[in-house]
């Protein structure tokens, strides 16, 4: 099991004003699975993504990522997990504006301690794979939205993560670019990379094997889009 989250509760604030963003959510993702999470804003899907991404820790419950219990790790350990095991893709791309595509893609490898020469080689290779071999030295403002997101995908891939977490990856893109990005994600998944994606667009979610619907901090429904042998939990509400 790639992701095993058991009875995850997240409470923001204390006392009267406390907000229960997640209420005993249990959620699992198999290795190689492609899962989409849907739900209205405030449903807790972003909170879950933050916890899955080790950017936040649950108030209670247990989160096991690829066999490692990360529920009670400290800042340094979490940073290491984020660096080695998780690749993030954001709605707003979050590229560093003053760095070239190549340099942007190199950043996660700096924190891993990869040598400069090797870093450049890997970054070049992965950028070429996502179709940007001729845009290595362009800055983000010289690239289109789809190209920027492809740089971000390359950045998510360079440390060979166990899982990719994509938060509305096509939310800021036109339909042509959206298709490109979804194709890339589908290719990556077919190469064996586990993907969890948040979206509010059902057409986008349908790329996944399974859709998990959130509401009020709880999972209300799961849809299995694979006819028979598909991954994921089969329990349905």
């Amino acid at each position, binding site marked *: 099991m790639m992701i095993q989250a058991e009875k995850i509760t997240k409470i923001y604030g204390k006392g009267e004003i406390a907000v229960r963003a997640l209420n005993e959510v249990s959620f699992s993702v198999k290795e190689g699975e492609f899962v989409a999470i849907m739900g209205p804003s405030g449903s807790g899907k972003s909170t879950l993504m933050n916890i899955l991404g080790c950017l936040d820790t649950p108030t209670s419950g247990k989160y096991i990522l690829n066999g490692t219990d990360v529920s009670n790790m400290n800042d340094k350990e979490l940073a290491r997990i*984020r660096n*080695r095991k998780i690749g993030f893709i954001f709605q707003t791309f*979050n590229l560093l504006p003053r760095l070239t595509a190549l340099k942007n893609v190199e*950043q996660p490898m700096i924190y891993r301690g990869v040598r400069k020469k090797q870093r450049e080689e890997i970054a070049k290779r992965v950028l070429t794979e996502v179709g940007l071999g001729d845009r290595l030295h362009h800055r983000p403002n010289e690239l289109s939205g789809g190209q920027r997101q492809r740089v971000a995908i390359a950045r998510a891939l360079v440390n060979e993560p166990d899982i990719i977490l994509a938060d509305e990856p096509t939310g800021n893109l036109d339909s042509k670019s959206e298709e490109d990005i979804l194709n890339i994600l589908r290719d990556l998944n077919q190469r064996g990379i586990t993907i969890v994606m948040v979206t509010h667009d059902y057409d986008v979610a349908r790329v996944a094997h399974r859709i998990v619907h959130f509401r009020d901090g709880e999972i209300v429904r799961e849809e299995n889009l694979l006819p028979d042998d598909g991954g994921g939990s089969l329990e349905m509400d």
Partner: protein
Amino acid sequence: MKWIEYIRLAFAEIFYNKMRTFLTLLGIIIGIAAVMIIIFVVHGAEIYIMSELESVLPLDLIEVSGRWDYDRQRMMANVTMEDINYIKNKLGKDIRSITAIYQTDLELNYQGRVYDADIIATLPSFQDFYKMSFSEGHFFTDIDLETRNQVVVLGYEIARELFPEGDALGKKIDIYGPYTVIGVLSESYKSPLVTGGTNDNWAFIPLTNFERYFGIKDRFAVLIRAADRGNIGRTQAKILEALDEKYGLVEGESKFQAFNLSEGIEGISIIKIVLMVLLSGVASITLLVAGIGVMNIMLVIITERTKEIGLRKALGASRGDILIQFIIESIFLCLLGGVLGIVLGYLGSNLALNYAREFINLEVAVPFWSVILSLAFTCGVGLFFGIYPAAKAAKLDPIVALQYE
């Protein structure tokens, strides 16, 4: 390796917003330039004062003599010619030179022209003690000393008075008997700062000659130059020890005494230190204000780049990584100011030097340690005033930072 990357990033950021960087650094540039110029001026003044004093008398001078016995009304001991060789051998490299002198006033007479001169009866090694340049001839030698040759070296003014035609060399003048002129000195340097010290009215004769004529022996003053001025006290103690070893003590005390100029020179050092402290205080306040400016701009930079910080954390940066990145940025920001300040300070120092040279003769360079000090100081300012903003950046919650617009 990470560090090199942080430094690259810092440079990219620092040069991205050139005008803001420059304005932020103005305080540091002026502060460091002021420190450089202050150090240069004090350093130059010290070198000037020392060289002027040196032109009058050697600052590493030690005078050794026997001690006066008040009860018996006589000297407890005298330093003999043999002792001079003994000290020379015993002290070896600790001393630069040793000599002996008698000094008295005598009338010099050449064919009715008379000059009342300071007679210095001494050894050839006396040349090591005063800067002497010869307009003609040379100083007397060890052979002149041994054979008690009646030879004399004349100071500039004596030669001018007795030989207005300038043909002194080889002439015989009367001191207490006929002496042949073998050398004439050129006019000595007159310091605008320190009076005295001119040898223009000195006449030099061999010491042995003087002793024979006056029927005395070993009553001269002994002058020694220490090899290391900073160690003059220890050298002096070693000389007395050597003499005590040979002559023994009287009532537990040495039969000899010695003096040196180190205390007077220490006075100069204290003035220098006080000046440095006062002026550095002013410079420190400037740099404190400049440092606060840097801290302010670092806080602005961190607010501007909140999203970047969130992203870096998502990509795997720990708190420590973020802390170091921004501290390095702050240090390099300040270092850039330091380098510009050093350049400005160097130009200012040379401007001051050129101005001073219109009045005095001065050879002095910007001391290298002031460059190192300035760099260290700016690094310190960057580190100190960078810690708080960097810690603030490191503590940012990655989720909040990522959502920051």
